């Protein structure tokens, strides 16, 4: 009598037959188990001796299952080719651990396979099979749900999005004393519709301001859409083509509805790949407009003389990290370098680079899977070695996932580098009538701010910056002290570190939100552990008004604190 198969396994098998196409079948059949892919994977290099990280071992998890159901030899003589079907939910969990937790779909093994086996593609397919029966890391489920329901993967509400754009517009106008600088929303018949990553709204609004400034100086006829503005696509990560298609269509339809001539995609590796290269295939949609990465747009502006730059404003030694999606799946390797050489005085290549670069380890949705963080950071030893060897002080990347992944590993390996994007460097090098002085954007007189952090240096730094701008600053070094001081002082804003002795930031945050007196107090999370975001956003209380990832520059701290104090309002 055969083994009893679980309901989920039955569904996965049904779905497998529908999902495989010719490319995937050929890839699943062609592997000769030569092992040439082995030392091309960052997980393997960082975990010597652990065979479970081998690309072909990971691929075999799906291959065995495929052979058991689709391949003739596997169906007839399963033991001969180690074919094995899936029977239990536990096996699905093990498959989940492999395809989500031990691979970032970076495609480095694919381009290193002598047989041309595209392991990343069928790893994504395996993810999709699991997602179809609800087997996935919790973080993946949360992000996918937000993208399905709210329309963007970080659950940014329309109101907050518009507020942020308005705030950035006001900031730009104030900084440059120029009311003509606009961030247009839903303007019809523009030459450029600019789409962004919701991370920019939530954690990094400066990139929006920088892009807006560049568009303004270039004299571009541009706009942003009030709907369908998110060019990221979690469908790429969770393997769900339906989600991928729906998200891409939203973005395309927003551009069509505005009668835009070109969709410009901000710096995001997976967003660029999803929107530019995959979305039309997932969504089965042809589009009447062109699409372009903002990197290419900025380079074009300089070449066409629409903007002028002064590279001496960026003298720090910088290196460039190629996002896997940009380099190995979209062929965007030369434009960022050309641009970097135009806006920086000291650009140093990282080795290997371009299509042979190693993953930042934050790709494939890894930043949303906190359960795999220790593995991710361990595997990041390869990227850390690459970064360290450059001697650069700053790493530039055209991808928001890479920004988070690199920031995390730089902190973990104590490399003392900062991470930035090309848009920031171009904006900094931009020749405009007045230079920007973000830190001098205004005072904080009359505001009382409670800083909670267990690192004395961090507290001292934040205190100095905020006090210099006129705020009354109160300090707490652990969660309990923060709660006591909050009740006693009733500050206008509380900044919370997530990892603190005693009650952690997440607990303190929830208590504050549930406290009838303090529930309306504005909170800005400032953490060195971005993977813990979920611990805040999953709580059954309204989300914090602000969020920053350490290290925080003075400009970013001031911009975000002012935004929280002056522009945000509570979500109920």
């Amino acid at each position, binding site marked *: 009598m055969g083994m009893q198969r679980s309901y989920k396994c039955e569904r996965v098998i049904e779905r497998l037959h529908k999902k495989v*196409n*010719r*490319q*995937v079948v*050929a890839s699943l*059949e*062609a*592997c*000769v*188990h030569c*092992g*040439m*892919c082995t*030392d*091309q994977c960052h997980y393997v*290099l*960082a975990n010597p*001796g652990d*065979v479970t990280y*081998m690309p072909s071992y990971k691929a075999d998890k799906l291959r065995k299952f495929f052979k058991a159901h689709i391949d*003739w*030899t596997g169906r007839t003589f399963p*033991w*001969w*080719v*180690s074919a094995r079907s899936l029977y239990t939910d536990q096996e699905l969990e093990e498959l989940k651990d492999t395809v989500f937790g031990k691979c970032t779909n970076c495609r480095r093994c*694919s*381009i*290193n*396979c*002598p*047989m*041309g*086996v*595209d392991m990343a593609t069928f790893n994504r397919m395996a993810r999709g099979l699991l997602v179809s029966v609800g087997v996935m890391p919790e973080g993946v489920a949360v992000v996918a749900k937000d993208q399905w329901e709210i329309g963007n993967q970080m659950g940014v509400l329309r109101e907050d999005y518009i507020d942020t754009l308005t705030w950035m517009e006001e900031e730009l106008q104030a900084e440059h004393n120029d009311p003509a600088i606009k961030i247009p929303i839903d303007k019809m018949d523009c030459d450029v519709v600019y789409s962004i990553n919701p991370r920019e709204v939530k954690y990094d609004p400066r990139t929006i301001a920088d892009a807006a400034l560049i568009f303004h100086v270039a004299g571009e006829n541009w706009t942003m859409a009030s709907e369908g503005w998110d060019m990221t696509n979690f469908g790429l990560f969770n393997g769900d083509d339906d989600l991928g298609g729906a998200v891409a269509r939203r973005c395309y339809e927003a551009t069509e509805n505005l009668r835009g001539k070109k969709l410009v995609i901000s710096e995001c590796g997976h967003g660029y790949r999803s929107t*530019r*290269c*995959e979305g039309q*295939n997932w969504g089965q*949609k042809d589009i009447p407009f*062109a699409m372009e990465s903002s990197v290419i747009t900025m380079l074009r502006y300089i070449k066409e003389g629409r903007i002028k730059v002064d590279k001496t404003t960026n003298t720090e030694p910088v290196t460039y990290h190629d996002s896997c999606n940009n380099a*190995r799946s*979209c*062929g*965007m390797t030369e434009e960022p370098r050309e641009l970097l050489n135009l806006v920086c005085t000291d650009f140093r*290549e990282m*080795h*290997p*680079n*371009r*299509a*042979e*670069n*190693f993953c930042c380890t934050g790709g494939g949705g890894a930043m949303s899977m906190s359960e795999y963080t220790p593995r991710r*950071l361990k595997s990041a*030893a*390869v990227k*850390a*070695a690459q970064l360290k060897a450059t001697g650069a002080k700053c790493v530039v990347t055209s991808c928001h996932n890479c920004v988070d992944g690199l920031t995390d590993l730089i902190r973990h*390996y104590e490399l003392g580098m900062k991470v930035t994007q090309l848009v920031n460097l171009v904006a900094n090098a931009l020749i405009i009538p007045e230079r920007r002085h973000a830190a001098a954007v205004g005072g904080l007189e009359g505001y009382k701010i409670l800083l909670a952090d267990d690192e004395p240096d961090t507290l001292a730094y934040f205190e100095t910056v905020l006090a210099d701008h006129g705020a009354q600053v109160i300090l707490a070094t652990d969660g309990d002290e923060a709660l006591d001081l909050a009740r006693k002082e009733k500050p206008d804003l509380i900044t919370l570190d997530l990892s603190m002795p005693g009650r952690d930031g997440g607990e303190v945050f929830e208590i504050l939100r549930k406290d009838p007196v303090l529930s309306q107090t504005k909170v800005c999370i400032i953490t060195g552990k971005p993977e813990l975001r979920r611990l805040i956003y999953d709580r059954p209380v309204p989300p914090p008004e602000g969020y920053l990832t350490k290290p925080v520059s003075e400009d970013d701290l001031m911009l975000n604190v002012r935004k929280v104090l002056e522009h945000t309002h509570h979500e109920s």
Partner: protein
Amino acid sequence: MDALYHLDTTSPLLQFAEDKLQIIALSFMALVYIFKVKWILSFKAGKERQAPTGNPRTTAQKGAVYSLFNIFMPWSMPSTRQHPFFYLQFGIFHVAVGTSIAMSIIIPYFPQLIANEAVIFALQVLFGLGCVIGLGRFIRRTVSPYIRAISTPDDYFSVALLTVWLAFAFMAAPNNRAETEFWLLGYFFLTAFFLFYVPFSKISHYIFYPFTRWYLGKTLGRRGVYPLPLNAGNEPLSRLFANTKPLEGK
């Protein structure tokens, strides 16, 4: 067959093994391959709707062609570049296998092509090296924990079969019927077995190779990745054959 020569010195069993048996085995293999190709073509190929990206020197067609011939460019992939000796073994082994298959046709129908002693010597060097490499591959598959973890019975059997077959090819190459009929018989029976077995084993990877390579190349060509420039990782000479070592520490 009329082309068969020295029938007078060839035993009926060897005549059968080198002629009819080979034809039957080859026909069988071809038939199964036809079914196999038909089977893979029965799966729908994915299509790309988007406009091409990347460098104008890259196109879907150029990418596909580059990808197909990528195996002959060991510099194009870190996996082959960093393991030149392994790549060399790969090359010799596959040339030996291909030559041995060719020899199974040459011996009965065009024996004059390998009548020269120098040619026989060259063949024996090639088969001998192939055999040693095959043995090495078998040992590697058994000893390396990485390769052992991914090996199936078919993997072990296939490499063992080819190794033994190359040993017989080595012995059969002189084609001396009076003295080496045992080896010739073994060689032809093994060839026939090989041809019957191949379509169901991993040895048939070459049937899938054009598909995987073509589609990967087409996709990456359209997306501006393939053909890769000569030194795709932009590696300095000092690092060209070295892999990145992880940072020591946490």
